[in-house]
């Protein structure tokens, strides 16, 4: 009997291997040489009830558990969240170019972060750091404004996307103005905009973790609804789905996740486009396959990009947004060229 699209064990295994390889490299490669087996033992020691002796000095052990591990985990969470949010937007809007930035997440976060930095508010850490809090709020306000403006234009997806473009342009103009009036802050603002996964420990991880979980759980639960939406609102509605409701829920949750990711790491671009499209081209467009694989490959991609960002020009660090685009764009063209799949 014929069955529908499903996640094959081979695809799931490929995703798992990608995550483990990226995380392994992220944990072992760095300015301080620590052997992979010692890193593994040190990690095992973290598991409650398990006592493994890695033989590492306390300072080297701390490099693994307090510097590299949180950085790898943060990369996984941010990459997964941004990639999944992109896939969710593309499905909800049936538009290959859609991602949360389309409705102003980047522009809103950028303006709010710029305001916070130029007001000299950038000194806290973790939960208390006003810059990510401002960026988070700014991103959500922008998406809300896009939705409200799109509503005035007739509630269609096209009017919503156009409203998002208008809102994003407006906010970007405001940000440019603020920046021009505070030229001394330009360097700091650009450093934030280009993104970084550097951490001050586990604080950032705890900031984004709840939003990562929310996005993954809710968006993946809507995988079938997004597959139904592929036939368009009118047919989806004739099939018994409420397309507007599905879109509102999926877009809201994806925006929350993207806002949290952007707040913690800055405006890392391209991940929400490149990862879902690569997965689509390789494994097919069904959201039942696409969404879970986007989560794992998104995380792996971000950890690998961060590894490149901190090793290519070591000891200096490249902004990770530069790396994702610099490596990501050519790679994507390669995938596009070699794929015979028609996915849009």
């Amino acid at each position, binding site marked *: *009997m*014929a*069955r*529908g*699209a499903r996640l094959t064990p081979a695809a799931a295994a490929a995703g798992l291997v990608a995550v483990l390889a990226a995380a392994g490299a992220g944990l072992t490669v760095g300015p301080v040489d620590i052997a992979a087996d010692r890193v593994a033992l040190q990690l095992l020691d973290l598991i409650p009830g398990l006592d493994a002796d890695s033989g590492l000095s306390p300072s080297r052990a701390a490099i693994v558990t307090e510097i590299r591990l949180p950085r790898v985990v943060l990369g996984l969470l941010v990459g997964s969240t941004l990639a999944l949010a992109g896939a969710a937007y593309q499905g909800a809007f049936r538009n290959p170019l859609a991602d949360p930035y389309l409705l102003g997440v980047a522009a809103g976060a950028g303006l709010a972060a710029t305001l916070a930095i130029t007001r000299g508010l950038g000194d806290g850490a973790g939960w208390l750091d006003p810059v990510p809090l401002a960026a988070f709020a700014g991103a959500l306000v922008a998406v809300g404004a896009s939705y409200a403006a799109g509503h005035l234009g007739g509630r269609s997806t096209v009017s919503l996307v156009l409203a998002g473009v208008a809102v994003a342009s407006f906010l970007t103009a405001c940000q440019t103005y603020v920046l021009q009036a505070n030229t001394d802050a330009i360097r700091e603002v650009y450093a934030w905009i280009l993104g970084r996964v550097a951490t001050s420990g586990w604080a950032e991880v705890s900031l984004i973790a709840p939003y990562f979980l929310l996005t993954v759980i809710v968006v993946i*639960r*809507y995988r*079938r*609804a997004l*597959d*139904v939406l*592929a*036939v*368009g609102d*009118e*047919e989806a*509605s*004739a*099939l*018994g*789905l*409420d397309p507007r409701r*599905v879109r509102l829920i999926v877009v809201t949750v994806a925006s929350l996740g993207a806002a949290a990711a952007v707040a913690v790491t800055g405006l890392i671009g391209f991940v929400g486009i490149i990862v879902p499209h690569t997965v*689509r081209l390789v494994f*097919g*467009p*069904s959201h039942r396959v696409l969404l879970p694989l986007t989560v794992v490959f998104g995380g792996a991609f971000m950890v690998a990009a961060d590894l490149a960002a901190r090793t290519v020009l070591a000891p200096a660090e490249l902004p990770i947004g530069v790396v994702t685009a610099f490596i990501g764009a050519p790679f994507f063209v390669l995938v596009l060229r070699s794929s015979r*799949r*028609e*996915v*849009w």
Partner: protein
Amino acid sequence: MIGPAGAAAGTGPGASGGGPKGAAAEPAAIAIAGLSVRLGTATVLDRLDLEVAAGEWLNVIGPNGAGKTTLLRAILGSAPFTGAVRVAGLADRRPAARARMLAYVPQTPVMPAGMAVIDYVLLGRTPHRGVFAGDSARDLKVAGEVLDRLDLGPLAGRELRSLSGGERQRAVLARALAQQAPVLLLDEPTTALDLGHQQDVLELVEELRREAGLTVVATLHDLTLAARYGDRVALLASGRIVERGDPARVLTPDTIAEHFDARVRVIEDVHGPVIVPVARNLRERP
């Protein structure tokens, strides 16, 4: 069995004929009263009344812009309307409840890239499962039966977009049948097809109607096809049903001239009227 879940036996084509006479025994499949649809400032449908008996096949005809598609969309609940639309006696406007009663074959269906035929047919099971539920054994069984019935079994794993026009139309019909709804709404099901495939699709609809006791409402441009297949025709013009009944009675040269602005001859054939366009004398034109 492909038919609607819990379909009453015996609602075959014999229940048709004179229209909603059987309405006392069971509610009309579709009962429309005072239906108006306004799009912007235009009144597309104007206080329209229409009943379709269970098991009947009604063809809605009318000139371009008469509101045929809008009528189907109003029945589906996807066009905002005033008035009453009852399906099997119920006026439930919730999408899932509607989709269990009405299956819809749109004029130009969206063919999602990369979607396999089986996945497309399984979309028809959407109203029968929760938003988050997967394919049940029953969903797969129904989809498998529908695919076999429409000779699509060997194509189940193929991508939709790789199908020919005739195969695509059968895939869309298969999705609609997988809904197991008692009423089938077809919007110009023959538009993109050549003559042979037009006959194939309409004969298939007729067979399915007999097998499963479906009620069929179709919009058709081709008046001869509209007369040949189905029980009754309803002529829609200026937002209202202006004529309805037996094709031989509705499809007269005068009626067609009045509403389609066309000059035709109607030839009586044993299978129903044949509408033949008559070339206007070109020299008479200004």
